[in-house]
């Protein structure tokens, strides 16, 4: 695997692709909220689809679906599965 693949964020993933959460960026409140919703380290996430204009994203975490705006998704660092 190249470095490029190891270091991307949730909003870089194409529709249907899976990844594991590596870490969360952003302010404390947002990180806590994301972690509570299940976006914690090593969780498996999948981008299900995007809204017609490309944002927000529908993301699957442990079988629960969330609508996540692109700039929030950018704060979720992932490693492609």
């Amino acid at each position: 695997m190249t470095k490029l693949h190891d270091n991307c964020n949730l909003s870089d993933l194409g529709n249907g692709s899976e990844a594991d959460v590596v870490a969360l960026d952003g302010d404390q409140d947002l990180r806590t909220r994301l972690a509570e919703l299940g976006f914690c380290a090593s969780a498996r996430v999948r981008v299900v689809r995007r809204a017609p204009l490309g944002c927000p994203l529908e993301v699957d975490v442990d079988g629960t679906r969330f609508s996540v705006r692109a700039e929030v998704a950018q704060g979720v660092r992932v490693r492609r599965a």
Partner: protein
Amino acid sequence: MPEPATSPRHVRVALIGNPNVGKTSLFNHLTGLRQKVANYPGVTVERREGRVAGLPGPEIGVLDLPGVNSLVARSPDEKVAADVLLGRQDGVERPDAVVVVVDAARPRRGLFLLGQVLETGLPALVCLNMVDEARREGVAPNAAALSDALGLPVVETVASRKAGVDTLREALADGRFSRPSAHALVELPGVQGLPEPSPERWGRLREVVASAGLADQEAAARHRQASVLLGDTADARRAAQRERSDRIDRVLLSPVLGPLVFILVMGTVFQAVFALADAPIEWIESGFDALGSSVSGALSGGFFEDFLVNGVLAGVGGVVVFLPQILILFLFIGLLEDSGYMTRAAFLVDRPLRAIGLSGRAFIPLLSSFACAIPGIMAARAIEDRRERLITLMVAPLMTCSARLPVYAILIGAFVPEQTVLGFLGVQGLVLLGLYLFGMVIAAFAALVMSRMLERSGVGPGILEMAPYRWPSLKSVGIRLWQRGSMFIRRAGTVILAMSIVVWVLMTFPQTDREPGMDDATYAAHQQANTFAGRLGHIIEPVIEPLGYDWKIGIGLVGSLAAREVFVSTMSVVYAVEQTDDATDEDARVADAMGRARWGSSDRPVYDLATVLSLLVFYAIALQCLSTVAVVYRETGSWLWTAGQFLALTALAWVAAFVTHLVAS
């Protein structure tokens, strides 16, 4: 504010759970109608309290906390929920025990919250709600196993069908709460020496987590624990449920069909609010008219009769007349929310609304404001983000509501030429369309400015759960309809009634003597000019003259504070138009009288094109609707925002009308 003294046997129980787990339905079943709804001091978080009905033993008070996903407080809802459980909420005694309501079909997040609640040390009872659906899907957690693992009693209910509520009530009566077994609490790496579960423990835990940056680990530990508690037996079934929902979403959220279905659904809702409400509104209006006539018939005239008919009855009618639209809108909103489509709709339109600082959640409130701002503003309750909700409330009255149409119709019909351009576009229609677009543009602009000015609260509208589709429960939709309707009547209705009476006083007093030789219509006009409203018209004339209005239009502006459509009937009195029974005929006469109106004794017409356009622009922006003001106050709980909105929209209307008049002259 201390709570009133309670008997020693009085027990207080709090209900807590994630949003939309049927917690409020349970609360309604437990308390019947023995409940009261108020706000917590200083915030617009609903405080719902009641007593358990039908129990022989000690009295049990139930407090329905706001639906929350976490006790780590970021939103006012979460802060109230946490503070109540920790005994830190002003005016609320710490409850003796807590019922944690968990959605049996989606238990993971409920167990996450349960884990946090247990840290606070309150004796607890777990209520697995909606077990019927969970069983049908084959995803219901094993209640007995869960109870063993947690060391807590677990009760199964189906709040929408009232099943299990008796068991829950008995459990409350028996005080069947317990403290969790030690291993029900999560352990964090490197965190030791926390006190026993208590407010102190929760406080210490928060300190440690914040200072060591362990939020991620804590959340992960709670999620792991939830997984252990649930086991993985139901995972395959849950995936199947997801699968069905996904098949629906492949159509409803597809790039092309998705937006089309969205437009179809929203168009139907809007049409329904507009069209289905028409008939009941007419019944209500003619009913109140008939009531007014019979009151007039029974009394011999004079102020008392006028007060009863044109003050009180008209005011009550003015409240009730909003009900059809409110109920129809909330019926659709209830069905859309319950089925799960609402979050999909928000998903689809999030991006376009973001351009003006809002999110997909603001769509329904703004759309329904085209019928009437009152139900629209009430619908804004569904917006979780406070800042966004406030912006929506502030700009909703700029959507062209149906009460503006009579004003537009008479002005456009009388003064905008009946020409066509490009062979088929009527100028009158274009002006009307222009007014709709104008309101939307001003709203977008105002929303953008406000979203720049107001500080973001919490994480903003960034994340929304998209739950699987399910069949809406008619009963819970019905209960919510009843609550919305009665809340509107009780909370906004009283203010609207009071304001109608104030406007009636302004339009009626002081009385003037009839001079000899005056016919009825001339006397009415003469009388009107001398009332407080008439004098106000004169007083504000210097302010409205730059807009091209004389004092008679000023009376119309004051009169239509009660409701915009009153403008037409006020102008009818002002111009001494003889009253007829036929409304269309009267409209034509009023338009005719307006056309003949002149400035003072000159022969310069009052209603030239510049003044008409300026008046249209003024009505498009100004908050000429005290009912809206009353509802905004009830929804924001703040006079500052209410008055600020009224003044800002009036000032904006003045400036826009001034510019319009200047340019058009």
